[in-house]
């Protein structure tokens, strides 16, 4: 069964999951298309600073008089982009690593799983902070060489290194599944027919893994999104003029004072981010219950 079809079948059965998927689609389309119809630019400074939500500015404005609705949607765009690319990186590494480890087995499998265990016991997000802060100028130079703006460098580093921290669970689960699958008669039959190992992995094992890959894909997206916003909040993520949900919330937090609460600056970007994460987690949980053979009874 095609993975997307499988996904569709599971979601269709459950109206709540349909609602979650539709909500995510809505957020994504607003971030990609809707942002052009707010009447403001995400980086347009004006005198109307720190305005409460009103007709002119649905989500209010920030310290520099920028429209918060536009900025929240722009933040969504960056956060979703980092999460999507990071997940793709983690998926590629996790699936390849897990398949090789499980398929080859024996000593190689032992060593590969020991490596996973060692990385598990390291403070990976702390290492990502080191990577981003020390490599950003190198990457900015590379980007300028190919004609791209240098302030995208941190985003590129986040794509890569957030993906590099999140492949471990995927690799473990894929390996476990491959260990089971490779004992199946159809694999033995393919071997007897003289098919190459690469072909068996790609044509026979991968389609059988698609369900589980979709489940952990859905669960990886929110964790990378959370990590990205965490780093952006600390000032180690995307840089101005780019903004993500993490930097928006950090702008809000550092303007908190007991005299005046600029609640809209926190509630709108933070709220939309929480709802998105919630929808993704609901979807991931629902899919896991339906598709993961280890959960299925």
């Amino acid at each position, binding site marked *: 069964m095609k993975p997307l079809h499988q996904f569709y079948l599971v979601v269709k059965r459950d109206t709540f999951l349909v609602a979650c998927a539709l909500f995510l689609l809505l957020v994504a389309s607003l971030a990609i298309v809707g942002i052009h119809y707010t009447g403001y630019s995400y980086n347009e400074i004006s005198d109307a600073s720190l305005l409460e939500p009103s007709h002119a500015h649905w989500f209010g404005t920030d310290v520099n008089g920028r429209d918060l609705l536009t900025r929240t949607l722009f933040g969504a765009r960056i956060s979703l982009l980092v999460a999507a690319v990071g997940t793709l990186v983690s998926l590629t590494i996790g699936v390849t690593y897990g398949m090789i480890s499980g398929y080859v087995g024996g000593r190689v499998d032992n060593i590969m799983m020991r490596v996973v265990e060692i990385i*598990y016991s390291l403070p990976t*997000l702390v*290492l990502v902070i*080191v990577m981003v802060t*020390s490599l950003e100028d*190198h990457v900015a130079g590379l980007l300028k060489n190919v004609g791209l703006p240098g302030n995208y460098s941190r985003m590129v580093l986040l794509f890569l290194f957030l993906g590099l921290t999140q492949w471990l669970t995927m690799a473990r689960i894929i390996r476990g599944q491959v260990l089971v699958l490779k004992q199946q008669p159809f694999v033995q039959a393919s071997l007897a027919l003289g098919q190459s190992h690469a072909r068996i992995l790609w044509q026979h094992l991968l389609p059988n893994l698609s369900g589980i890959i979709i489940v952990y894909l859905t669960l990886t997206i929110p964790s990378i999104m959370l990590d990205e916003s965490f780093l952006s909040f*600390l000032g180690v993520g995307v840089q101005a003029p780019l903004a993500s949900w993490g930097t928006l919330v950090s702008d809000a937090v550092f303007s908190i004072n007991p005299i005046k609460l600029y609640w809209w600056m926190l509630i709108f970007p933070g709220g939309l981010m929480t709802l998105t994460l919630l929808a993704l987690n609901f979807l991931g949980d629902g899919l896991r219950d339906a598709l993961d053979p280890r959960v299925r009874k």
Partner: protein
Amino acid sequence: MNAIIIRRLIQAIPVLFIVVSLTFLLVRSAPGSPFSTEKKIPPEIIAELEKQYDLNGTILHQYRQYMGKVAHGDLGPSIRYLNRSVNEIIMQTLPVSMVLGSLAYVLALFFGITLGGLAAIRHNQLGDRFIMLLALLGISVPSFVLAPIMVMLFAIKLHLLPVAGWGSPDQIILPAICLSIPFTAAIARLTRGSLLEVLKLDFIRTARAKGLSENTVLFRHALKVAILPIIGYSGPAAAGILTGSIVIETLFGIPGIGPFFVNSALNRDPFMTSGVVLVFSSFLILFNLLADILYFVVDRRVKME
């Protein structure tokens, strides 16, 4: 088993060596000098400062000098915080982070297991649904969104707790709760799932058939087995609390190790950054080893490798 523990400890040495080397070399490979500031400092002065801090010559030379010091337990001077050594800063800030982190850990374990247990007993009833919804919310709300909301509510509006700071007991409550919530939620989900599995097993039916009270069955028999996945999760949880506390310490103005680490990474202070990475990694490796030992002690079926 002792031999295995010793072997694991010895295995940790090359891992730590690689992590610290990588950090130091990466930070030093970045262009610019950690001494350059907003104000223009004459290059001669920067060169002199670099010489004083053993940051002159080739990177490899600097690296050898640094590793020589680390081998003797000296993590070098701090560049951003004048006249203080990395050892001093870690000695002062690490205990603060440890207090906050352990309190959050204990809270997460207590409330996570309690709520997960309650949900499992009321499987598929309203209480179960409600707790699981809360738990999913708990793992979805980022701590830096939750914490300012809690501050606005409990500190600024209701004046129940202080907004920020460190030193008096009431100042630890909000940060510890905010830090613990995602892990409380994760542990609650794990406990529920694992208890539901265990409650189906034969030995539980036997215990009930013997006429034991439901509480005895639950706490003396079922929980003992159901606790295993939570022990398995304790390593990742410790890593999560460690990184989570960086944000919480920044938010609440707590003088822990987190804000120092982020500042020194942003300022490319090679000594402070590598030193903190070394401390964090050693702590987590040790913690994971302890968790594995505990797992082995609780479940004798597992072979310790």
